[in-house]
């Protein structure tokens, strides 16, 4: 699989987790999108650092070749999938722990 294919797999998994599997529904919440809007500039900045200095180097055969702030556009999808996956699990386990602490 190329990097392009695997980022879409990661995006699909993160969305399935949030919408279908643990049903946290963060994609429909203002808190999630506000958090993402805050994180995105930091992702662009740190990604620019890692890619423009060639700390991380991509094989051109495995990416589309479209770059934003020096980083492959795939990185944005990858970042979004990581953020959604982590936050979805965070909210899910927060709910579970709360239920255990205060049983209905």
């Amino acid at each position, binding site marked *: 699989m*190329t*990097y392009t294919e695997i980022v879409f797999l990661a995006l699909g998994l993160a969305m399935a987790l949030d919408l279908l599997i643990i049903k946290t529904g963060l994609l429909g919440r203002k808190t999630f999108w506000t*958090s993402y809007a805050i994180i995105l500039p930091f992702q662009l900045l740190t990604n620019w650092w890692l890619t423009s200095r*060639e700390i*991380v180097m991509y094989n051109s055969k*495995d990416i589309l070749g479209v770059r934003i702030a020096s980083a492959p556009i795939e990185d944005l999808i990858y970042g979004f999938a*990581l953020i959604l996956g982590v936050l979805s699990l965070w*909210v899910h386990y*927060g709910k579970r722990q*709360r239920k255990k602490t205060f049983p209905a």
Partner: protein
Amino acid sequence: MYVEKYGYVGMLVFTVLASFWLEFVLKVQVLRRIKRIAQSILPPAIFFLTWDAIAVHRNQWSFDADQVVGIYGPFHLPVEEYLFFIVVPLAVIMTLEAVRRVKIQWRVGDEE
């Protein structure tokens, strides 16, 4: 001065500095919830690091040996890459909790 080898570590330190102040200023209380942190960051970390190991093995991407400190973990991934999947998810969680502190009327879904 061999500052070059701190290129990747520098990015991680920046991420910590840019986010961990929320722990003290906005009292987001993320770091004390160790179990929940582990439950949230381990599954994505395992997914992404597995893919990372395969990609490096297949030469899909690589790390500049001169810009990492030179400590390598399993699958020949630099220690920075492992730290990335701890530091970045923590920064992400702290951001969500900070937004929650400021916008208390917005529901996240894990409230009582």
